């Protein structure tokens, strides 16, 4: 047993982090917000070139030939950077939809009552021909995720890999909001000391770390084992970690966190939107409960 990142996996993660720092820095993020989540096609192609979409495509088919454990590392970084776009749908479409692997096309797909980034999408998958009949763009709570509301719930289930990759993105948000909270707590001085010196702030941050570590472990484990029940656990814990950490980050940052200029609200809103993908909390819990009546662990 070696349930630790390999050297290759660590290098992969660092590579993506560096790429995103270069190609999607804070300035680019705020520009994307101002653009209402409109996609930067150059960036999309850069992601394609870096293997973001082709990661799990066999090498024989021009892909990188890696697996879900590597994919969750990528999507955690995407979540951390608040990278916009139907990343998961395009990633899943690599090898199926021409140009997806290379980042030449943007692929989206309906889930539940919504399609994300419909305006920017070149291809829509998992949709029958009249899926978009009567669909209406809504004023999305997440400025980085344009949402179109379907006239009826899509009958296609959210793919299992998409559930897991969404959970990985949530871990990215949980981790990043912890970083933001810690940074603020070390820098902001009130009552003559950094607010991070106060136990109440310390303990908020400590619990945020506990959530990150737990959710990340669940996501990694689900990526390695690929079982439905571990995936449900990963989704449940990662949704909770992302939403609660973003909330706690806001609390730590106080008034400053409540401004539009602070990034924390972008994480919170994205975490809400991601939690709406795939099984709900209740559905995940039901799946996990049912598993208890099977063979004892």
């Amino acid at each position: 047993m070696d349930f630790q990142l390999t050297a290759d996996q660590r290098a992969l993660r660092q590579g993506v982090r560096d790429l995103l720092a270069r190609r999607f820095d804070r300035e680019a993020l705020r520009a994307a917000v101002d653009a209402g989540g409109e996609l930067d096609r150059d960036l999309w192609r850069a992601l394609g070139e870096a293997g973001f979409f082709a990661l799990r495509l066999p090498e024989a088919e021009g892909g990188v030939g890696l697996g879900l454990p590597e994919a969750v590392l990528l999507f955690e970084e995407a979540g951390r950077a608040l990278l916009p776009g139907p990343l998961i749908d395009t990633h899943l479409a690599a090898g199926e939809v021409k140009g997806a692997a290379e980042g030449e096309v943007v692929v989206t797909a309906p889930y539940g009552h919504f399609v994300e980034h419909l305006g920017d999408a070149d291809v829509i998958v998992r949709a029958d021909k009249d899926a978009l009949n009567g669909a209406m763009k809504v004023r999305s709570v997440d400025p980085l995720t344009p949402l179109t509301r379907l006239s009826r719930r899509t009958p296609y289930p959210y793919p299992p890999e998409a559930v897991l990759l969404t959970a990985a993105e949530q871990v990215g948000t949980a981790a990043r909001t912890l970083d933001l909270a810690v940074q603020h707590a070390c820098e902001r001085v009130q009552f003559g000391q950094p607010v991070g010196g106060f136990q109440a702030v310390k303990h908020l941050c400590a619990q945020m770390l506990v959530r990150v570590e737990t959710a990340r472990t669940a996501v990694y484990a689900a990526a390695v084992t690929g079982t439905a029940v571990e995936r449900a656990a990963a989704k449940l814990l990662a949704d909770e970690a992302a939403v609660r950490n973003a909330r706690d980050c806001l609390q730590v940052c106080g008034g400053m966190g409540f401004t539009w200029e602070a990034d924390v609200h972008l994480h919170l809103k994205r975490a809400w939107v991601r939690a709406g993908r795939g099984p709900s909390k209740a559905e995940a819990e039901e799946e996990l409960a049912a598993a208890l009546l099977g063979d004892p662990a």
Partner: protein
Amino acid sequence: MDLAYTPQEEEFRTELREWLARVLPGLPERPDPLDWPGRRAYDTTWQRMLYDAGYADLQREATPTQHLIFLEETERAGAPYVGANFVGLLHAGPTIAAEGTPEQQERWLPPILRGDEVWCQGFSEPEAGSDLASLRTKAVRDGDHYVVTGSKIWTSHAEVADWCELLVRTTPVTPDTPKHKGITWLAMPMDAPGITVRPLRTLAGSTEFAEMFLDEVRVPVANRVGAENDGWRVTMVTLSFERGTAFVGEVVACRRTLAEVAREARTNGTWDDPAVRRQLGRLNAEFMTLWRLTQWNVSEAQKTGGVPGVGGSVFKLRYSHARQELYDTAAEVLGPDAFDLDHDWTLDRLSSLSYTIAAGTSQIQQNIVAERILGLPKGR
């Protein structure tokens, strides 16, 4: 990143299983919890069996993963717990192994591994709980002895222990000697005159712990491990590194209990309440992940030889809370049976209340995580 066991690890597991299947049926009956000599005898018999089979010193002779497998399999097989041998095997022993002289190691380690000698721990004091370093039990040098006076609390197995790993103050606290600097580690023979042990009843009604009163107890200077006044460091060497295995058996046991609670819910109809069902599902996610987190920490220890104890704080924060939730949920499922002390889960619920307090309260653990992992400043 994988969760598969190597062929060597699988072989270790198979041999262990075979051995457990062979020897467990021959074990004597479990003694009554109030029969301390009986419990000592039972626990030391088991330790001797482990010794004879080569499983006694896993801390040093096995990899962290093998250690995890050992704890997992013994828990699943219903083998005895470490019990009275806990302090010797997991605290005093490792301290002596790391900091003792060759003579001290020769004197004390083999009897621990063979189950010949039982140790208890004299660290906490009535006035020094979370703030352990403020301990006051005093040791005064008198020739080749220390003369020790004071009192200790939360001393498990004190009634039947042969030795006590004792922290004493050898230099008073002054502006020049901060509290961590005047502490010394001693091995105190429990048959020395001047020791009084009084059972301490917990809210669960049990007397797992004791108070220990020391009235001019003479301990040979030769029993000191490490230098005089260096006892805090000596102790922390052991306490601050671990292999991620501390809660393996407990997590396995909690997962089994959770499945039992689910089956009980199914039987008594509470399963039909979606709120109960989902809470059970939530706990499944919790304990499944705590198991994976254990495997993560053990894998890290396997790579690095041991991990800083602060990682254990993250685990303990989550685990202690989940354990309390588990038994609260069990009580909800049980309904009227939850008020009956003859139901195991009722007693377990009571004892689970200590998990956010003992061995560092959740508040202390959060300080540790915030300051040592996240780097937040110490406050005023």
